[in-house]
């Protein structure tokens, strides 16, 4: 009797041990799955941003469909996941996710929603009106540069100076220096700005560039490049090539 009692209790002990082991294995599997899922949030989005009337929707349709369409102001963002069409017709490029944000002042802030998954940003500027609107352009560019994700992940930015075929277009060197001067002024005023209600980011961390030198885009950790182009002309000029190369390189 005692032996059977012993085996019974032993049997119970092994059963309990088995149950505990099962639970541990389950927990381990769940933890592994969770960790893997977190790692697999791939950043594969490319944003097209810029002021209204810069040519962002035209750029989007050219990238996606390869044709130039007539456009008006966008009210909602155009979003698409598609393989990037390259020059030779047979090979299709990698799949990219491109988002074209509306340029309206009230909708611009939406770029912050896409920031955690952004791989690269194409900032489109209208070369003909940039001299007049340099404050608005610089402010938008500043907001993009100062975003904590952009700073932390060093997201590369390609500045597309559109409409270079028009008479009044400035060349990209001039645009670059205009923007640098404006951002130089902006960073001091923004750093001294009054704290807003839901702002718990430390404004001192956002200071772009080096303090005692005038601001230059080279001071930023993000790789920045300026490329002039004309998105409406049908031929595959350098501009659209540059954008495609930019995206392709990053999508790899």
């Amino acid at each position, binding site marked *: 009797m005692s032996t059977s009692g012993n085996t019974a209790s032993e049997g119970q002990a092994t059963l309990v041990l088995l149950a505990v082991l099962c639970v541990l294995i389950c927990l381990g599997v769940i933890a592994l799955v969770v960790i893997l899922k977190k790692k697999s949030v791939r950043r594969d989005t490319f944003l097209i941003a810029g002021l209204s009337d810069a040519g962002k929707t035209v750029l989007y*349709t050219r990238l996606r469909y390869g044709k130039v369409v007539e456009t008006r*102001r966008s009210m909602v963002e155009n979003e698409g996941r598609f393989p990037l069409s390259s020059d030779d017709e047979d090979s299709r490029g990698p799949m990219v996710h491109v988002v074209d944000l509306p340029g309206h002042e009230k909708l611009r802030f939406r770029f912050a929603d896409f920031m955690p998954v952004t791989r690269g940003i194409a900032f489109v500027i209208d070369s003909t009106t940039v001299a007049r609107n340099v404050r608005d352009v610089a402010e938008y560019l500043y907001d993009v540069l100062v975003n904590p994700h952009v700073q932390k992940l060093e997201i590369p930015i390609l500045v597309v100076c559109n409409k270079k075929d028009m008479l009044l277009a400035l060349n990209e060197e001039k645009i670059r220096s205009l923007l640098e001067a404006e951002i130089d002024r902006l960073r001091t005023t923004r750093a001294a*700005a009054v704290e807003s209600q839901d702002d718990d980011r430390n404004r001192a961390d956002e200071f772009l560039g080096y303090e005692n030198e005038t601001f230059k885009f080279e001071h930023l950790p993000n790789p920045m490049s300026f490329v002039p182009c004309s998105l409406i002309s049908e031929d595959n000029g350098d501009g659209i090539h540059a954008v495609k190369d930019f995206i392709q390189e990053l999508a790899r």
Partner: protein
Amino acid sequence: MLDQATVLTKGGIVLWSHSYTPSASPAPIDSLIRSVLVGEQASARVGGEGKGDAEGYVKDSWRVKWSLANDVGVVFVIVYQKILHLPYTDTLLESFHKTFLDRYKDSLGDERACVMGLGEGAFDGFEDVFEDLVREAERTAKRTQKPRTFQETAAYANTVAGQRNEKPNATDAKPTTVESSIAAASSSPPSSPRGRGGGSSKPAESSQSPKMGGKGGRGPRVWDHGMPGTASQEQLDFSDTKEGDDAVVSEALVGTSLGQRTADGLYDALELDDNEYEEEDEGDDSSIVPNSTDPKPSKTGLFSFLHNLTSSKTLSKEDLEPTMLKMREHLINKNVAAEIASHLCDSVTTGLVGQQIAAFTSLRTAVKQQMESALKRILTPASSTDVLRDIFAAKASNRPYTIVFVGVNGVGKSTNLSKICFWLLQNKLKVLIAACDTFRSGAVEQLRVHARNLMALEEGSVVDLFDRGYGKDPAGIAKDAIQFAKTNHHDVVLIDTAGRMQDNEPLMRALAK
């Protein structure tokens, strides 16, 4: 007579456009999108259903009318000259909307098909269809503009023949009067000098017929030598004496709100319970009801709840109605003006009608999301709020930067003025405070104390006070203050005004000066 007609996606791609003038500029459409559809300009959105009201949106010399199709994300726009008065544009817009959707509904859902089709001219055949629609709309409008026959006027109804014919035709008259009143209402704008009399006589006529029948029951008034006779006192007494004077029992009056009596015999009112507020939230989830046109049979209780939760359905106005009503009431209870609350609810409804909500989203969440985005849009400033940048720009052009503090009485204008003054001083700017509050006693002294303390806070800070005592014209003082700042090289002028309510017209007019 139209200038342009366009169909574009919400993302900005033009699907089909036709312009009747050689130089069609994109300005009115861009302006429409900028101010109304995104900028939520209230004046142009009266009318609901995603359409402009009878007046549409006016920009320069054009009038713009539009219609939204939320399920495919498409906007239909018609532009014509403001001075023309075209009565058929509303019907044209509706038929335009419907015909285009019917014709191209297969390709509209897919953006790729649309854009690729654009190059091949997929939408080109629509021009002839559109011309037909315009002609049809013009013809319908002309038909309703025909002058009425004598039989239809009020003068006929007053003749003997008209009276004789009216009573037996009372039931027949109803449908025709509704139709003709709609026709009258739609045709009254172009024939306004005549129409005002005509349009108002039509509904009056339809209301006269039941009234005549009713008066017959009361009998004609009796006049005794030109004065109302005394015998007709009972006839003239229309008060309701049938109900007795029984006092209503107090139970029904007070009911469950009756408080308690304490030991001393004093009456203790009932305390407010916080449980009332929680019930509101539970009640909302019951508003997920299946769409009445849903052909699926209703399942058993538990599974129908799951089905509602997981299936995605298209929203219609009736589905949204109860939720929007609750939302509007809630806003008004929280002291939002009634007009603004209804405008906000209308814009949320327009944005949601026809959309499909994803699975696992309740109606309430969808409405909340839409409301959040609408509020974010309204509250996002359209221009930059970088004050320091503006001040430096003004400094560069050698003029002082002015900030005027306005608000209702007692919100903290003078206090915030001194706080902002402190911030400006920290940024090494020279400030002039103009005391234009000449109404409240002690306002000038308050500012003097603030200025003195601020000056004492830091070495080398420049804060001056500009005042002209009490009772003077504030606008004049402000003008002099700005002049003074210019000559003495102050960077910023802070103007403090008296508190005023926004509906106090003379004070608001003074502020405009």
